[in-house]
């Protein structure tokens, strides 16, 4: 791992072993193939079994539900290594773990946990998370999707937009307002009549990930679909806190990939008789990237320590997500520049990461929204609403 500040020395043996195993997997099975998937705009479906066998889905949830039960820092390292491969293939695992398994674990009944978690952990079931709607993802409280009481069950109507995995999912965690206007979560099997999930084509980002809509037309579900302990916007936001935590680590993996590529390239590319790595302007870019990586990694590690101790605040998560993704994106742009013309072809990983990170900068709370969350926290004055 790129580790200028010896963060490795803060890790325990299991954390190191987990990182090593995921790193090997990524190097062997993702790095050599991802370019082709990305170029073809193709999600590699077979990877779900590989993730399942390794235990990458919901790895931080308890063993009694078929999960690996790793700690928060190990969970962060998994995200780091996966995103070093590709943000889309990290997103695939993040959605399943933090946005599908976590709400079932946190807000579900014991029966729902036992029924779904082991299957999701093994990759035999794939889930998606439907919160965003087409009008203003930054303002999920304005959602229009409704869950109407109908006998002992519910009827769902509405549409979700930008939903990772929806076209390939077996079940969806859908957020909708009930008759009282309270946001509730539902676990909806995707073969339920009235459920549709058209694919969003022509993405120029996260091309190895599958994104779609969710269309709910009089979609009737039984009482067992409701996540009984969900209630209010804080429930989906609680999931986002989990996912953002993983992204704060993941983005640094992408930064490692673009930094290493740029450094190696600069060392061999010669102009005017000298490797470009020997030029001040290039060194400046490389040093910025590495400094950002080091700071981000220390922040992520401390965030993990706080999370493990139950002391992490949402503003801290916002700050880490906001910072680490943006520095990765800036680093990718700088790396792209260092590679010159070669920087624009997918023969090198740089432009792929750069374009992927545009999404990562936007989803799970845009960069600016996180600015406003932290800003509100430190000034006590809300600029968001």
């Amino acid at each position, binding site marked *: 791992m790129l580790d200028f500040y010896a963060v490795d020395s803060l890790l325990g*043996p*299991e954390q190191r*072993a*987990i990182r090593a*195993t995921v790193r*090997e*997997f990524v190097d062997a099975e993702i790095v050599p193939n991802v370019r082709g998937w990305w170029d073809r705009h193709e999600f590699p479906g077979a990877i779900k079994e590989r993730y399942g*066998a*390794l*235990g*990458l889905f919901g*790895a931080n949830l308890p*063993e009694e539900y078929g999960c*690996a*039960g*790793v700690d928060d820092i*190990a969970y962060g390292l*998994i995200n780091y290594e996966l995103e070093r491969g590709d943000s889309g293939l990290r997103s695939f695992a993040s959605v399943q773990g933090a946005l599908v398994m976590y709400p079932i674990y946190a807000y579900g009944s014991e029966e729902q946990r036992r029924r779904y978690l082991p299957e999701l952990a093994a990759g035999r079931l794939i889930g998606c998370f439907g919160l965003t709607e087409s009008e203003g993802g930054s303002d999920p409280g304005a959602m229009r999707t409704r869950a109407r009481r109908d006998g002992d069950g519910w009827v769902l109507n509405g549409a979700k937009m930008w939903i990772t995995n929806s076209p390939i999912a077996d079940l969806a965690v859908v957020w909708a307002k009930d008759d009282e206007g309270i946001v509730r979560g539902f676990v909806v099997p995707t073969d339920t009549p009235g459920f549709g999930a058209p694919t969003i084509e022509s993405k120029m980002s996260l091309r190895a990930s599958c994104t779609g809509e969710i269309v709910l037309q009089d979609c009737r579900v039984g009482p067992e679909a409701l996540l009984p302990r969900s209630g209010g916007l804080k429930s989906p936001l609680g999931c986002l806190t989990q996912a953002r935590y993983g992204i704060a680590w993941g983005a640094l993996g992408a930064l490692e990939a673009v930094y290493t590529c740029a450094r190696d390239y600069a060392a061999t590319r010669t102009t005017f008789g000298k490797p470009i790595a020997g030029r001040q302007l290039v060194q400046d870019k490389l040093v910025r990237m590495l400094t950002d990586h080091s700071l981000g990694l220390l922040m992520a590690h401390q965030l993990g320590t706080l999370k493990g101790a139950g002391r992490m605040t949402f503003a801290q998560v916002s700050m880490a997500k906001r910072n680490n993704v943006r520095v990765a994106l800036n680093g990718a742009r700088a790396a792209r520049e260092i590679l010159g013309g070669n920087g624009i072809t997918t023969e090198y990983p740089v432009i792929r990461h750069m374009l992927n990170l545009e999404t990562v900068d936007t989803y799970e709370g845009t960069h600016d929204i996180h600015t406003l969350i932290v800003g509100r926290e430190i000034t006590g004055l809300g600029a968001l609403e």
Partner: protein
Amino acid sequence: MRILVCVKQVPDPNTVVYQIDPGTKRLVRDGVTNVLDPGAEVALEAALQLAERDGESTVTVVAMGPEDAEDAIRRALAMGAHDGALITDDALAGSDALGTAKALAAAIGQIGFDIIFCATESTDGYSGMVPGMVAELLGIPHLSFIRSLEVRDGVLTGQRVIALGYQTVQCPLPLLVAIASGSHEARYPALKGIMAAKRKKVEEYTLADLDLDPDDAGEAGARERVLELLPVEERQAGVIVEDNGDGAARIAELLRQRGVL
């Protein structure tokens, strides 16, 4: 069955640059990351597959090395071995192949076994001596370079790679098999395995535990002494050219000069 696997920790073959300390005439190990020998992983994979087919076997990994060789054992446990044994003693540093084999055989004798797996050779030393030596010390047969195997009614049937193909060989248990390097694809330790490995037992053995004394193993017992190190005469690189459609023609031209064409 009680299955034992000899595993070794080696400098990471993907990153190591072999440097020799001119003073000690040993490999420089500082700053080198160590890993479970990829060859040992393949042997372990073969052992785990045998245990899984059989359903009632246990797999114990045995390593000799410095204390941190426990990391290699933990990795083997994370891959699925049930427990481990680490032979570690300051007096063991600098052991030669026979010293290593004596320590391994002594521990294996105490643990007990039906079948022992080894890699055909280690990635760093590649002498390939240890399997035969361990078997000899234990008074059991050994089969080297095995690429596939089955155990039925206490008899192992396996395919042994030879230059022109393979031989089918048979031998009753107990015995030792050395597994050919590319024959099995070692699994990644799954996350659950890594977490479970934390709770698995690793027994430590010292020379005294094994009734060995430093003349048997370790530097004191080693019979190979390095006298001096010489630089290798390197081959000179010749002409390296970019293929601009004329690469084949240039090769053909050289072949003509050499009288091959």
